[in-house]
């Protein structure tokens, strides 16, 4: 596992750049992860998606399925990809500080 510097902290990430310890996630870390996924700054819309994923994950232990994500945030799949060009699984989940999703999104 590699260590990278994010928001002034040394953070352990896996080979795809997902943080290993979801506990250490905070807003600053999300903002530092965002540019790595082609998101220059996190807008309110980005946060809506990130927060939904985060809350769902903390509640259930897994990432939400895409349809659930679209339904709950009110965004279409297209809008999600406009917000997160690298996709919900790779981009949005990474920024939301989830460990690598094995299932869906």
């Amino acid at each position, binding site marked *: 596992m590699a260590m990278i510097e994010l928001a002034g902290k040394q953070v352990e990430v896996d*080979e795809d750049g997902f943080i290993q310890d979801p506990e250490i996630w905070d807003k600053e870390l999300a903002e530092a992860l965002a540019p790595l996924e082609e998101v220059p700054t996190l807008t309110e819309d980005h946060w809506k998606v990130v927060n939904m994923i985060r809350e769902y994950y903390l509640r259930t232990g897994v990432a939400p399925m895409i349809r659930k994500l*679209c339904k709950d945030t009110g965004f279409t799949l297209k809008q999600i990809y406009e917000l997160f060009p690298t996709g919900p699984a790779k981009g949005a989940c990474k920024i939301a500080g989830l460990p690598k999703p094995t299932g869906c999104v």
Partner: protein
Amino acid sequence: MSFKPPGPKVPQREIKYDEVRIYTDEEIHNYTEEELKNFKIKYDIPMLEELEKGPWPSFVADTKQLALHRRKLADDRVLMPKECAEDLLGQLQLSLEHGETHWKHGGIVGVSGYGGGVIGRYSDLPERFPAIAHFHTMRINQPNSKFYKTDYLRAIADLWNFRGSGCMNMHGSTGDIIFLGTTTEQLEPIFQEMAHVLNQDIGGSGSNLRTPSCCIGKARCEFALFDTQEMCYEMTMHYQDELHRPAFPYKFKFKFDGCPNGCVASIARADISFIGTWRDDIRIDQEAVKAYMAGELLPNAGAHRGRDWGKFDIQREVIDRCPTKCMALEDGKLVINNAECNRCMHCINTMPRALRPGTDTGVMLLFGAKAPILDGAQMSVCLIPFMKTEPPYDNVKEIIEKTFDWWMEEGKNRERLGELIQRMGLPKFLEVLGIPPAPHMITEPRSNPYIFWRAEDVPGGLTFDINEYRTKHAR
């Protein structure tokens, strides 16, 4: 989901290898037979070398050639570590010794704007095999029916040698060209180069619509009963979002076979199989039937010649082989009871000059095939035995979309359509599609008919108490 009008076909870009080539002829042919014979990769691979024995082609021999070729290229002429082919063989040997794979499970990598088409692959022994620490797969949307020009093949081979391992698979079981092995940094440049220079899209992976594929159809085949290439193209273009941005419970495949011979095996592999069929009568040329019987025409267009099978016997080889027993010879004339024919193609394949499918052609739709994962393999079931359709195929899209909507609503994570149909029952799915049950929908309508009853269909109503029933009929 909404209907899009069909766009004009994207004109095909003419690719000239000389304009896009990366390597010189000397670099491509950079070793001699002699060198290959004496070439040793840097690992001992005795178990793999077993696989080189015998008369068959071997991926081990191929990979060795690739290893030698890469070793002899200058260092700055490849962007993926040069020794990847050698490390690949080294790791595989070790995996065989250990009885388990040394690829890690999963990996999420991708290209900008797409959620599929790239599969992350990492070695779990990156220190030992550094050249394949990353070895991601890319799926490339093959052209319809896999027609290629050599210029195109050379161009992709150069690109993949330069930015990837050089190792590819023509084709994966879904139909894509598979690029095997590159690093994360190279994914985006390859994607950009493919899209903007080679005019080539990548395919599907993960929980999305997988790259649709079709048989050679009207391009070459006399049996094609609808234009498989046209329909495959339209569906690929229409469902771009579904193809590139995974939002399904699991994978979903479309396959288009021009006739029931099923050359892309749609019935075995596709969640929706589209198979060409006809609803009028098989056309019979009685003169040609006589010519087959007299041995003047070779059965199966001569496909079995070269061995003595004895004289052609129409009774034994055609009439008795008809699965529905709907053929007979009457006064030297072949007669077919077309109402009983299930379009198996056997008689037509055997005597193509004498028998041809009818002229009122269309497609049948079958649903729910899959390869074995949880419950074992499953063939798709015929729910729409015949429909007429024309580009842009709106009536077919309507059915597809009803299917998508239901599956996305009800399907569990990683549940294929066929499994959902099994779990919820075929009657439920028929209701979703809005079609009445019919004898075609069961495997053997002629020997095993059954009927779906729902309480509201029974005149006067039906009351049925399972508990009361069980008091008399123990399980």
